[in-house]
């Protein structure tokens, strides 16, 4: 069933090397050749294997600092792994407060660039364009550089691009905290009506209701390791016990 699998990760791990002195210039490196910087290794993700099927909505839960963000970045192909192998079938999008946008570009240009990065053709972006602008509620500022946007407008635009364009595999990190209450309601509606159908989604959240509602399988993480991967109810139970 090779076709039905979105991501296969086997024995992946990730360590961050944090140096206390900033030896990031040639001068520093030369002058401190025999005095290497004090390095601290942080094992953010211990050896992990998992498989995500296409069209599945997976929950990812755990306390702060347990490695959820590192795991999503590795699975999305943004961070390279230290060990193991990862196979990603399709384009990925990582979203916490929206997709990446250039502050130097206008809203219109950002829509086209982001849409294209997410795998859409220009004609497809043309078709989605009005929906993205309407959803973001920025009709009067479409040719304004986003650096002049308020943080709310920026977040709405980024969110709107992400929900309307979408990638094959989406990693959603606490996305329901964007915008005001009215916008959040809209966000949940679009999430239910379009994303859940056909897309592969990895949902990171501290809101157990959200996880329970949308995810069939969930992973519970602790100290950089997946402690449990399977039934959502069981994962939530483990998370709650861990929080006590």
């Amino acid at each position: 069933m090779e076709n039905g699998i979105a991501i296969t990760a086997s024995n992946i791990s990730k360590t961050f090397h944090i140096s206390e002195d900033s030896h990031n210039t040639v001068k520093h490196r030369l002058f401190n050749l025999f005095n290497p910087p004090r390095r601290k290794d942080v094992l953010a993700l211990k050896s992990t294997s998992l498989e995500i099927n296409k069209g599945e909505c997976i929950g990812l839960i755990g306390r702060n600092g347990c490695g959820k963000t590192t795991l999503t970045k590795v699975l999305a192909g943004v961070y390279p792994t230290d060990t193991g192998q990862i196979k990603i079938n399709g384009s990925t999008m990582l979203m916490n407060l929206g997709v990446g946008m250039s502050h130097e570009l206008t809203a219109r240009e950002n829509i086209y660039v982001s849409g294209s990065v997410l795998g859409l053709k220009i004609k497809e972006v043309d078709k989605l364009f009005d929906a993205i602008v309407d959803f973001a509620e920025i009709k009067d500022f479409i040719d304004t550089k986003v650096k002049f946007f308020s943080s709310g407008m920026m977040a709405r635009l980024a969110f709107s691009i992400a929900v309307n364009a979408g990638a094959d595999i989406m990693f959603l990190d606490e996305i329901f905290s964007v915008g005001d209450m009215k916008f959040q309601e809209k966000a949940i509606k679009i999430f239910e009506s379009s994303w859940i159908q056909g897309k592969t989604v990895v949902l990171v959240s501290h809101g157990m209701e959200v996880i329970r509602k949308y995810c069939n399988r969930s992973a519970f993480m602790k100290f950089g390791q997946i402690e449990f991967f399977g039934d959502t109810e069981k994962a939530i139970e483990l998370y709650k016990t861990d929080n006590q």
Partner: protein
Amino acid sequence: MLLKILNDWFKRSNKVERLWLLAKIEFKLRYYENKLGLLWALIKPLMDIVIYYVVFQIIMQQNIPAFASYLFIGLILWNFFVESTTGTIQILNTKKYLYEYSNMNKMEIYVSTLLSNSIGFFFNFMMFLIFYNFFEKESTGLSIQNFWILAIFLNLFILALGMSLILSTIYVIAKDITQIWMVFTSFLFFLSPIFYKLTTFKARLPLFEYGNPIAGIIINARRVMMEEVPPDFQLLGFDYAYAIILLLLGIIFLNRLGSRAAEKL
């Protein structure tokens, strides 16, 4: 069979469209953000030509035939190389928004930026053609040999891409590569036959045109554009070898160092 596969790939993938879109936006950002707009792309080489013409032809009296055109073609090739290398050292930082949230191939960022520089080069080259054919008194006119410029420019493109990959990935671990490269380029500028007489250059630095790939590219571009002769094939072969080796090195650097850009920058 192969054509069908390629055709399918082009139809289904948006890669080509994306490269062109990013190149156009990059070009617009560079030239349309200031009052004079695209004129800057044309004014800059002209101003350089005036300066070097005064120094080398009027004050130092080198007596190079068609010196303004000689300078023109040398300078636009050199400027393309500098813009594509010095101008892209921080590319993984400035274009982070493109790869930080998705698994987009970083190589596309480089190719689109160099494509954008190629648009600028194209405008400059058109100006050169107009200048050389209509205003240059000692012009030999158009010739079939002119078509070789395509192969020579492709050579320069690959060379600049390779260097850009190497420099910008080193930037991930050593920020002052920017200053080091600036010193190196000014050294390279004076060691390339941009404003010297070729015979003097060859006499003072024997065989150096084989050691400096930019020198070879400029020498061959002048041969095909101004002397109505084919390029020096041995030199062209050397320069392609340099460019391909540097590109391969650049790809290795991109996979080793560039892949860590999202976490290091």
